[in-house]
């Protein structure tokens, strides 16, 4: 059984939206975009730990539109599919359709702040139900981002001990009984000794002598400090969760470690309580990465995806964790004009074979792009270095605007743009104007790869192969470059005249010559390109102040476009 999708109307950030889910779904989005509210919507219907009183809506739960209008009703529909589990079939009865699907609905009215629950095989055939009776067999386990390990442990401790007691063999139980008796005897001895400590006794001497002065009635009366005759059970109840590292005991842990401990405890607990034949459980964890080192974050993500036995929903701000999810399992919550929604309605199949060839795991850099407002895609590391420095010089604060500069490093731009489109993250690209040799019908031609790449990305028709003798200069002279640029620039696609180094030689010729110590520009360019990233870095570190001069040049236009997108 899986949650196929949720549709939310009029609830908090959401005016009207549908969000599709996958087997494991990662929910990302800027702060305040509505991730937690999405989780809350699911919890209203499925979280056992959410008391019935929380189902009553308050005024602020109804969506506010920017013009001041407020929604009158809230609808939250959870669509389930593939319902095969006996326990759920047994409890939902005729609410599961012939297609093995079912819908649960929460609805609320603003005029009287009332709410109602419904259940049925589809949206049009819902019957009202009086309570979330299905929670016994169908529910969500939730861990929120603010986690208090101490509190969790103190409640779980007793349970852990109890379960462990029940799981002992008879022999073990007998042995424990014997040991407990020994413990009791020794505790009695300890109590006695504690009481006899001179400084324990003495602590109350002063009090007692004053008391006897106060009143005749008190002359036989005295107070003393006592260990209170600790009983074995109390002693065990007060056991504290400790930790040991390579056998030596240490204090529990810092926040990161505590986070890991809490999540393991939580998962072990839900496994214990969960009988897969009698219950369908969904898992929701907010920001599992809290306080964790990046490698640990990745490990945790893998752990959660592979170890939790039910459908999982994870919200995160971590690129490490995001990198563990394939794009079709990522829900990107965006907010526009005061309304939140999921890009492409949530999980969608936007993978193409090129992405598949990349392998299932993404590296860290692309994952960061999912958190950006606008992504600037460039050819390689030297371009990335250059534009980052350019932005700084032009006082464009990339982080402030949530802009990420990403080098595609050999992967097709198309792969990134199709995913970014699905995520509804705007992008700008700057690509090299490559021309390559090609043979067609045994005749040699030049393939205008760069130009055609831009045209294809802009969904325009490609240009035919050019004659074999065509050069870059020809493309400028015959207007192909400017024609193409004019068409594609407004879509955020920018074409170098040749490539970054060549274009730089046009806009910053003096600086280039000085840096390379070469007599002419072609040699200077070759020098830069010989050791791309290294030489670019050197160049930038020497001449970054001069970058201001090219603010209005061709090279900078792409960056400006990217900024414009980020500000929308």
């Amino acid at each position, binding site marked *: 059984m899986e949650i196929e999708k949720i549709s939310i109307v009029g609830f908090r950030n959401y005016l009207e939206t549908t969000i599709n889910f996958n087997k494991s779904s990662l929910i990302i989005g800027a702060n305040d975009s509505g991730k937690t509210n999405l989780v809350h919507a699911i919890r209203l219907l499925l979280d056992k730990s959410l008391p019935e009183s929380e189902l009553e809506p308050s005024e602020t739960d109804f969506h506010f539109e920017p013009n001041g209008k407020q929604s009158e009703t809230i609808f939250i529909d959870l669509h389930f599919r593939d319902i095969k589990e006996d326990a759920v079939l047994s409890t939902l*009865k005729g609410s599961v359709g*012939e297609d093995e699907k079912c819908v649960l609905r929460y609805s609320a009215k603003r005029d009287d702040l009332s709410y109602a629950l419904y259940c049925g095989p589809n949206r049009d055939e819902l019957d009202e139900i009086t309570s979330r009776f299905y929670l016994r067999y169908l529910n969500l386990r939730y861990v929120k981002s603010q986690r208090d390990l101490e509190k969790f442990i103190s409640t779980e401790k007793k349970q852990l001990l109890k379960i462990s007691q029940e799981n002992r063999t008879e022999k073990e139980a007998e042995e424990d009984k014997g040991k407990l008796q020994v413990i009791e005897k020794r505790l009695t001895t300890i109590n006695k000794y504690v009481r006899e400590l001179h400084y324990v006794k003495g602590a109350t001497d002063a009090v007692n002598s004053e008391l006897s002065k106060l009143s005749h009635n008190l002359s036989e009366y005295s107070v003393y400090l006592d260990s209170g005759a600790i009983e074995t059970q109390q002693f065990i109840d007060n056991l504290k969760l400790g930790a040991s590292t390579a056998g030596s005991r240490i204090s529990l842990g810092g926040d990161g470690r505590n986070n890991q401990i809490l999540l393991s405890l939580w998962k072990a607990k839900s496994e214990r309580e969960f009988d897969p034949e*009698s219950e369908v459980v969904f898992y929701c964890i907010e920001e599992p990465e809290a306080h964790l080192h990046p490698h640990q974050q990745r490990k945790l993500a893998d752990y959660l995806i592979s170890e939790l036995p039910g459908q999982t929903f994870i919200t995160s701000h971590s690129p490490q964790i995001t990198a563990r999810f394939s794009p079709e399992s990522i829900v990107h919550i965006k907010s526009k004009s005061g309304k939140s929604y999921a890009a492409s309605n949530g999980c969608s199949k936007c993978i193409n074979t090129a992405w598949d060839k990349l392998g299932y795991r993404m590296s860290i850099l692309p994952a960061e792009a999912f958190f950006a407002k606008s992504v600037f895609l460039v050819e390689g590391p030297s371009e990335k270095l250059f534009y980052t420095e350019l932005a700084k010089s032009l006082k464009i604060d990339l982080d402030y605007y949530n802009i990420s500069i990403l080098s595609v490093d050999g992967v097709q731009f198309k792969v990134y743009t199709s995913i970014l489109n699905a995520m509804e993250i705007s992008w700008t690209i700057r690509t090299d104007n490559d021309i390559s040799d090609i043979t067609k019908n045994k005749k040699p031609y030049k393939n205008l790869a760069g130009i055609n790449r831009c045209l294809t990305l802009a969904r325009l028709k490609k240009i035919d192969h050019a004659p074999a003798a065509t050069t870059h200069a020809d493309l400028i002279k015959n207007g192909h470059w400017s024609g193409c640029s004019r068409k594609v620039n407004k879509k955020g696609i920018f074409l170098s005249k040749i490539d970054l180094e060549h274009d730089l030689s046009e806009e910053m010729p003096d600086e280039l010559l000085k840096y390379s110590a070469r007599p002419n520009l072609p040699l200077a360019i070759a020098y830069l390109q010989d050791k791309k990233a290294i030489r670019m870095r050197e160049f930038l570190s020497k001449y970054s102040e001069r970058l201001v001069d090219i603010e209005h040049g061709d090279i900078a236009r792409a960056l400006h476009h990217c900024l414009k997108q980020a500000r929308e």
Partner: protein
Amino acid sequence: MIKLTKQQVAAIDHPGNLIITACPGSGKTTVISEKIRNELVDLKRHQGVIAITFTRKASKELARRCTRGGKETKSSFFGTIDAFCLSEIIFPFSKFIFGPGPDNLEPKFTDELSEAENTIITEAVNFLGALSVENTYDYMPVLKVLYDLGCIYFPSIPFLANHIVKQSKACRNYLKARYTTAYIDEYQDSSSAQHNLFLSLLGIGIRGVCVGDIQQSIYGWRESSPEFLKQLINMPTFNHLTVSVNHRCHPSISNYANRLFDEACEIEQGDEIRVYYCEVEGTELDAAVKLNNIIPSIIKKFPVKNLSDVAVLVRYNKGLERLREKLIIPCKIYTEDNLSRIESKTSQLWVALLEFRFDKSILVDDLVNTYSPVSDIRRDRLKALRDAIKNVRTVALEDLADTLLAASQSLLDVPVTAFEVNALIQIINDPELLNQYLPATEDQVQCMTLHKSKGLEFDIVIHLDLVEWVFPKRVPGANYNERVYPELEQDLNLHYVGITRAKNACVLIHTTQRINAQNAVKRADPSTFLSLPELDKLYKIVNKKW
């Protein structure tokens, strides 16, 4: 701890599909409840058994036995076959066959049908014939029309349920997910539709355990037949066990009863004979008068703790009228009045409410639960329902009719007919009729028809009406000598049921005269049942002339 016989243990432990022939007094309810209790132990919370009995009263008793000692029945269903069909199949799944239905789908008896609905059914019967297993499929469009009007016609319930089970995968998935075994009691009184439904359940993979006794099939006049139990016995996938030790009756009574069917039947040896033939001079009316002396005389020989341990069984309801007229000894006459004769939800509810008024042991929630599970009702409505019912106990007689009307309005939301109201008022205004609703007390002899006695037991049973032409029913043949008994098998079963209600003593009474259909007094010969072969040494004749 009850000590179980080997036969009982074998039945309880058997793991597969099973038919249990349970003779009278063999502890049938014990066997079923123990079997169910054992099965429930290994079931998950969301699973359960289906336990079908003939009456709601029997369901309650079975459920009570199964939960004895605080045991849980988990997700089991206890109820009648109609209740099962409605709540587990028809209400939840008919929408997948008929499309979305109206908000309030209601089961209706014939008496409750609206004119439109009645017309639809009469036309269907004219065109297709009566609803049967063969024409179920053709009847579906008719049932759909009724469904769209919000009506489920009671007689169609098992047919419709079977159709839904066959057509809806969602229904089959649900039944298989929840139920592991179907236990059906009184299978000898199954109808063909119920039998087919049972076979469909088996087809889904649910185990079947049926309990019945061919010799106790007494409802043949209601479309039921022991045929189906016989069919199951012959099915290779079913095993047949018998529980035959009669713990209830004195051995001489069992002997006599068994000899009715099989003249070569082995009898248990013993000295005492507890079956008596008693001749009474006069008609049935005279017999009723004379019972005032006969009963104390029997009690002198066989003392009882309470008068309620004595039962007088008659063949027809009119026999009860005679008793009511003539019996001076304190007695409870279990008869039908005009209200219980109406088959409608409203009248059934009023009967239940009248009983509730006089019997403090009935709980308010029992009544609410009969109409819909308490857990399904919203809190505010539940309070209103409970208050409406409580009032029935407290109001004065002159307000009783109005209170009952109010109560049935809130519980049922069904329009009340003038016919029903008249029957109600007639009863309320007649103290004798009203007193019928007083719960039986220990010091009243219990008087009922043979049919009503099924499942009960008494220390002493007095069986009346054993004269020719009356019991077994006889009709004139082609000539004077030809004896035609049109319902011999059913009547013999009925006689058997009556006799096997007795623990200590059974007195079979025949009168020398009888009152015929034209109210004339005729000479009466003893019933042919009294001269079946090989019965002679099994009874004693009462010498005294009454």
